[in-house]
C-alpha cells in the first residue's frame, strides 16, 4: 500500500526549473532514499511534500488524500538547514515544537524524558541550546522531528555534519522507527550512506528522475561489472588493458570497471601474465555512485557536479 504518491510534479523558480516531472510512490513501512547531487531538486521535492511550497503542476497525495496540510501532525520533518531557538532551554524547545504538532503538555513531557534518555542527553535538559555542541543540537532536532510519533518521517540530509558514532546511532534509530511502523523518506548526496539502509531509492539529477526502484533491483539491473583489486607494487602494466573501461586507483587498492561482465576472466589472466602482485581480486556490484554516473552518462549528461 502506498503511503505517499507524487505524480508528474513540476516546480519552477523564475526561469530555473528545480523539479521537472517527478513521479514516485513510497510504500508504508519502508525507508526511501532520495539521492542526487547538490541542487538536484531534493530539498524542493521534500518541501513540496510538506506543503511549504506549492508545486506548479502535478499532484502529491498522502494516503490518497491531496490535502496534506490537514495531516501535517502525522508527519515529522527535519529540514536540511538545522537550527533551534538558541536562547531557549532544551526541554522548552522540544515542548514548543511538540505542542505545535498537537501534543498535550503532559504527554509531551513524558516523551521528552524518554527521548533525552535514549539519546543520553538527560543531563542537558535544562541547558540552553547555545550551550550545546553541534552534534548534540542535531540530536535534539531529531527528537523534535519524531516526538509526536509521525506516520511519515521526512529527513533532509540527516547525516550531514554527524560524526561516525552519531551517524551509526541515527541509522539504528531510523531502522528502529521503521520497525515500529513509521515510513521514512530521506535525502542525501552521499550515496554510500544509502546502500545498507534503503529499501527503495530514487536517483534524481537536475530535477528529473533517473532511476526509481527497489535498491536490490537497481543493483541487479546494472550487473556485477566491477572488480576490486588489492595489490603490491604497481598496476601500470595493465593500465591500458582492452578489458578495462575505467580505473580508480588508490595506490594499493583499485576499483576497476569492466567493458562487459564476462571480462573478469581475461583480466585476471592478464594480471598474472604481466606479473602484477595481486593479493585480492573480487567481483562486486557497482556502487550507487557508479550507477548514478552511468545513468547520467547514458542520458548524454556529465557529472562534474555530482559530488
Amino acid at each position: 500500500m502506498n503511503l505517499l504518491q507524487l505524480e508528474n510534479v513540476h516546480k519552477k523558480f523564475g526561469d530555473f526549473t528545480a523539479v521537472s516531472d517527478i513521479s514516485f510512490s513510497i510504500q508504508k513501512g519502508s525507508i526511501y532514499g532520495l539521492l542526487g547531487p547538490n541542487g538536484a531538486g531534493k530539498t524542493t521535492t521534500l518541501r513540496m511534500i510538506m506543503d511549504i511550497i506549492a508545486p506548479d503542476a502535478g499532484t502529491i497525495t498522502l494516503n490518497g488524500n491531496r490535502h496534506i496540510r490537514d495531516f501535517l501532525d502525522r508527519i515529522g520533518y527535519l529540514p536540511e538547514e538545522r537550527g533551534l531557538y538558541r536562547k531557549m532551554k532544551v526541554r522548552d524547545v522540544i515542548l514548543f515544537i511538540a505542542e505545535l504538532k498537537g501534543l498535550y503538555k503532559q504527554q509531551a513531557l513524558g516523551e521528552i524524558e524518554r527521548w533525552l534518555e535514549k539519546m543520553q542527553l538527560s543531563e542537558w535538559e535544562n541547558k540552553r541550546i547555545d550551550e550545546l555542541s553541534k552534534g548534540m543540537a542535531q540530536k535534539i532536532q531529531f527528537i523534535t522531528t519524531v516526538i509526536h510519533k509521525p506516520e511519515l518521517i521526512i529527513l533532509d540530509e540527516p547525516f550531514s555534519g554527524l560524526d561516525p558514532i552519531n551517524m551509526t546511532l541515527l541509522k539504528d534509530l531510523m531502522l528502529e522507527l521503521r520497525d515500529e511502523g513509521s515510513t521514512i523518506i530521506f535525502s542525501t548526496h552521499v550515496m554510500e550512506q544509502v546502500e545498507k539502509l534503503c529499501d527503495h531509492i530514487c536517483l534524481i539529477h537536475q530535477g528529473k528522475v533517473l532511476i526509481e526502484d527497489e535498491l536490490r533491483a537497481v543493483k541487479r539491473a546494472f550487473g556485477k561489472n566491477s572488480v576490486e583489486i588489492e595489490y603490491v607494487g604497481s598496476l601500470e602494466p595493465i593500465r591500458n588493458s582492452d578489458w578495462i573501461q575505467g580505473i580508480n586507483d588508490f595506490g594499493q587498492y583499485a576499483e576497476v570497471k569492466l567493458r562487459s561482465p564476462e571480462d573478469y576472466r581475461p583480466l585476471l589472466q592478464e594480471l598474472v601474465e604481466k606479473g602484477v602482485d595481486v593479493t585480492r581480486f573480487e567481483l562486486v556490484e557497482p556502487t550507487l555512485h557508479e550507477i548514478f554516473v552511468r545513468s547520467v552518462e547514458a542520458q548524454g549528461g556529465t557529472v562534474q557536479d555530482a559530488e
Partner: protein
Amino acid sequence: MPNKVVAVIKREYMTRVKSKGFVASLFFMPVLMCGLVLLSGFLAIMEDKPKEMRKLAVIDETGEIFTEMQAAIARHSTFQHKGELVYELFEEAATEALEIALQERVNTKDIYAYLAIPKNVFANGEVRLYARTATNFEVQRALRRMISDIVRDKRFADSGYSQREVSQLMRSVKFNAYAVKNSKGDTGGAAVESSIETGARLGLGYVLVFVLYMFVIIYANSIMRSVLEEKTTRIVEVIVSSIKPYQLLLGKLVGVCSVCLTMLAIWVLFGVVLIMNINPLLRIFGIESLPIQLLLIVGTVKASSAEMLTYFFVYFIIGFFMYSTLYAVVGAICGSEEEAQQAGAPLVMLIIVPFVLMVQLVRIPDSTFSVLLSHVPFFSPILMFMRINVLMPPLWEILLNILVVCATVGLIMLMSGKIYRVGILMYGKRPTLRQLWQWTRY
C-alpha cells in the same frame, strides 16, 4: 486538540517576560521617565546666576538713562545671587572706536556685555546688547523691562502724569481659561475644567503617547528580530510545516502585545497604589513635601480617568498591531539584522510624524486639518488619542475612527501575512517593492 497558536503566544510571551531585559525595563523605564521630567523641569527653572561679578558697560548717548539703571538694578532679582548684586554697571563715552574696543573686551571675557542706548531712544531708537551669546534670554528680558520702564516713566513724566497714577492705572486684569465639557458637572450644568487641569491631562496624554512610541520602538523591533532569528536558524521551516504562517504571525503579535500590556498593567497598578497613598508613604520616610515637578506628575496621574485609560489601551493595541505587523514583514524579507535595521528605518517615520504633528495640533484640535490628520489610519493611534484628550470629539467619530483603523490593521495584516509567508522562506536578495506587491497576490 491543543491550540497551536496558543503555543506560539505562550512561547513569545514567556521567553520575553522571563528575560532580564523585561525585569530591567519594568523598574528602570518609570525611573528613567520620572528622571527625565525632573531634569527638564530643573533645567527650565535653573537660572543663569554667575558667582563672580559681571561687568556690563553702558554707552548712554542720552545721558539720562544710566543713572536710573544703576538705581533700578538693585530691584531686579535677575541681577542678584543670594541677595547680593552680581552685575556691575559702568558708563563709557560714545565713540565709534570705543565700540570696537568693547567688542574685543567682550570677546576676551574682560566684560560680560555692553549696552548701546541711542539718543533717539525716547522716540523710536533701538537699544543694542552685545554679549558672547545671544541666548541669555533672561538677562535680555530683564534689561528690556528695566530700560522700557525707565523710558516709559520719562515719557509719562513729560506728559505730566505722576508715577503713582500711572502704575495704578496700568494694572492688568486677572485672567483664567476654562474648558467646558460635554458631561454634566456637580451643579447640573456642563462640567468645567480649569486650564491647569487641562494642562495636567495634556501632560498625561504626552506621557501615554510617549509610552506607546517607546513600546513600539522596543517591542516591534523585538518582533522583527525574532522573525529574523526563526528565518536565519531555519526553524521557521519546522514551524510552518505545523501551522500556517499567518497563525505564526498572529501568535507573535498577540504574544508580544501581551508582554507590553503586562508591563503597563503592573505600572498602572503600582502607580495608582503609590499615588493614592503618596502622603502617608512620604511621612514614613520623613519627607515633608515633594519637589514641584513630582507634584505635577502626581497631579497629572490623579487627573487621569478610567475613560482616558480605556481609550489609551484601545489605541495602544491597535497601534501596536499596526506598527508591529510592518516590522515583522521587514524581518521576513531581510536576511540579516543589519539589513533589517536599515530597511525598517523608514517605518519609524510613521510614528515620528504624528509625534511631531501632535505638539502643534494640540493648539487647534478642531481645525479641519487636525481632524483630517487624526483620521489618517497610520496617525490615528497618536493623533486621535490626543484629540480625545484635548477636545473630546463626538462618540460616533471615535467609534468610526476605531472601526476604520481596525479595518486598516486587518488589511495590513492580510497583505503582510502573504508577504511574510513567501518572505520567511526566501533567502538571498531582498525583494523589490514590485515583487512584494506580487507576493501579496499569490
